[in-house]
């Protein structure tokens, strides 16, 4: 058989809606397309003319899975436009909020969306029949992530407490104390999760990625840092657009991001981990080593283990932040808008999320640019799928299709982040 087409018309267990189209000709992969049916919502256009203070709430609606990431990139960008610095307690609260989102989002993906593949199940409810304790642990752990976001942010989806300059209301140390006991359990459960994910059968694949991540002088990156890569990139966030290009390729679903003059790159857990292992909490490092994970991991299928390590780190970091928390004098610093441009990149659970805003002297938004992590990874996803198909052409079609789906799910693609996704016109050549 020389020609075959693998079509996964509706890609399940991803956030948002997408499909995959692989074209094989004469035993060679001729084409791979990740097909996005997500209708465009024009966020960058509808932000024009809105007030700077509305950016965190409006951009949160880009994604119900990682609204905190959008709020964080938005507030940091606006604060840079107005040259505002926030005091350490507000910075700590933001980091705590982000820890909550990392835990919730990673655990959702690890157990509910991704692990079923490794166990040959259609979904987590099937997993629950054979591994009820695993699913119960997952739900309890996920809930603790949500509890942090609810307490600091007001609610778990589209938090309401975040504003440019800080928060509307700062939690009291007593309120944060209520999270300590659940988080201690969560850290143990996250360590269990590292062991559980490391025990799953892993398909073989090594990809020579260009990892791109934030790097902070002494923390595992979340809210700030320089953008670095394993191929010599070392830039400030304001230089992002001169080093990365977004291409609108014909017959493609999305604006593909590339490193200028070099090509595809990878953002997200594998990239953060590979270039920031030394910044992980000691317990997270230790569990990673025990699980047999090297300090660099190039197998996309093992991203599920790396997410577990990051979940453990987020639990440990949240505990530290709560232990050291001293409430700020005021929940927010005063904000006086002025004309300017602000850039920010933060580490969403899925990788770097870049925002850039230009505002006028009244604080009205003149232009906005938002580059979500899945748009940056899209070209790399297609390349990984190509590799997986080439190595496994002998597999029966349904098995190969499932393996391809699994390869896509390794990226936890958040297709709802639709700022830059297009509807694909599928190329159906014979």
């Amino acid at each position, binding site marked *: 058989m020389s020609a075959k087409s693998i079509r996964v018309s509706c890609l*399940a*267990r*991803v*956030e*948002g*809606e997408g499909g995959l189209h692989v074209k094989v000709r004469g035993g060679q992969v001729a084409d791979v397309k990740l097909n996005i*049916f*997500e*209708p*465009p*919502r*024009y*966020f*960058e*256009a*509808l932000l*024009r003319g*809105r*007030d700077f203070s*509305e950016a965190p709430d409006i951009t949160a*609606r*880009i*994604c*119900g*899975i990682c*609204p905190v990431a959008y709020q964080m990139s938005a507030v940091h960008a606006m604060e840079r436009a107005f040259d505002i610095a926030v005091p350490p307690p507000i910075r700590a609260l933001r980091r705590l909020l982000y820890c909550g989102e990392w835990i919730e989002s990673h655990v*959702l993906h690890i157990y509910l969306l991704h692990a079923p593949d490794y166990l040959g199940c*259609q*979904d*987590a*409810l*099937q997993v*629950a029949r054979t591994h009820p304790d695993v699913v*119960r642990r997952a*739900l*309890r752990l*996920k*809930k603790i992530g*949500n509890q942090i976001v609810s307490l600091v942010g*007001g*609610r*778990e*989806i*589209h938090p*309401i407490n975040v504003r440019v300059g800080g928060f*509307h*209301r700062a939690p009291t140390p007593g309120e944060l104390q209520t999270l300590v006991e659940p988080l201690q359990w969560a850290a143990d459960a996250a360590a269990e999760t590292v062991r559980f994910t490391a025990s799953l059968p892993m398909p073989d694949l090594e990809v020579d990625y260009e990892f791109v991540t934030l790097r902070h002088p002494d923390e595992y990156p979340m809210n700030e840092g320089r953008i670095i890569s394993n191929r010599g990139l070392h830039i400030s966030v304001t230089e992002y657009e001169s080093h990365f290009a977004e291409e*609108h390729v*014909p017959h493609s679903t999305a*604006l593909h991001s590339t490193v200028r003059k070099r090509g595809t790159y990878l953002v997200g857990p594998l990239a953060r981990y590979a270039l920031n292992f030394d910044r992980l909490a000691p317990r997270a490092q230790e569990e990673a080593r025990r699980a047999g994970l090297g300090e660099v991991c190039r197998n996309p299928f093992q991203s599920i283990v790396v997410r577990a390590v990051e979940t453990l780190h987020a639990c440990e970091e949240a505990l530290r932040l709560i232990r050291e928390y001293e409430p700020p004098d005021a*929940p927010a610093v005063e904000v006086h808008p002025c004309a300017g441009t602000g850039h920010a990149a933060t580490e969403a659970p899925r990788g770097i999320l870049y925002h850039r805003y230009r505002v006028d002297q009244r604080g009205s938004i003149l232009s906005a640019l938002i580059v979500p992590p899945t748009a940056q990874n899209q070209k790399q996803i297609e390349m990984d799928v190509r590799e997986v198909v080439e190595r496994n052409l002998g597999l029966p079609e349904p098995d190969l299709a*499932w393996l391809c*789906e699994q390869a896509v799910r390794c990226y936890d693609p958040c297709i*709802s982040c*639709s*700022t*830059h996704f*297009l*509807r694909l*016109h599928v190329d159906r050549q014979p």
Partner: protein
Amino acid sequence: MKRTRKPRLAVWKFASCDGCQLSLLDCEDELLDIAGAVEIAFFPEASRAMAPGPYDISLVEGSITTPHDAERVHHVRRVSRCLITIGACATAGGIQALRNFQDVRQMASIVYANPAYIESLSKSTPIADHVFVDFQLHGCPISKRQLLETLSALLNGRRPPATSHSVCVECKRQGVVCVMAGRGVPCLGPVTHAGCGALCPRYARGCFGCFGPKETPNTAALAARWADMGVPNDQIMRAFRGFCAYAEPFRRESEAHER
């Protein structure tokens, strides 16, 4: 008569952020019980097993923004016995309905280098503009508690509870001091549908209307009050033009402040 099979549940998505359907997966304490009470037959975000219809209950997230979706929603209606819209996108058009006040082609050219590839309707519209809707859950996002309560009511053959009062009532019930009367913070609470539990006022913030207009809201009176407080006209316009901008009372009020 004894039920011989579990009711079948489907979850559908149109233009949205996924947050409202995520609310179902966020029911960490109840998820396994829900799965015990219904057959989750079609829920692509959570399962690769996609069983064909008909379905007893369909939860529909998102608004209609493309010609393809305007067709697809009729299919969803045909295969659903009871269709419930979940969230501001499905019930009011969502934040993407801000396009309804502008030229969508111009918006496409701002975002995309080649807008000719984009297939998009000029307006983002709620599901009820296209097909009959049995029940609506408001909110951006919906309240998890309301979702559970609605599912439970349907499964037990009673009417889902429906409130018609405003966020103000929720503040009073919880003993939250009025942010507008007490601290002069502009608040949409008096005209906004209850359901969030007075979340923003509890966090010292004015309501920004994510549950959409309550029944018979007096938006003009509230806008006049805001103006007395010194809120500029363009800010009043933007306040009504938010996550439920295309819900009729909010649309009219924002247009009244356009110039």
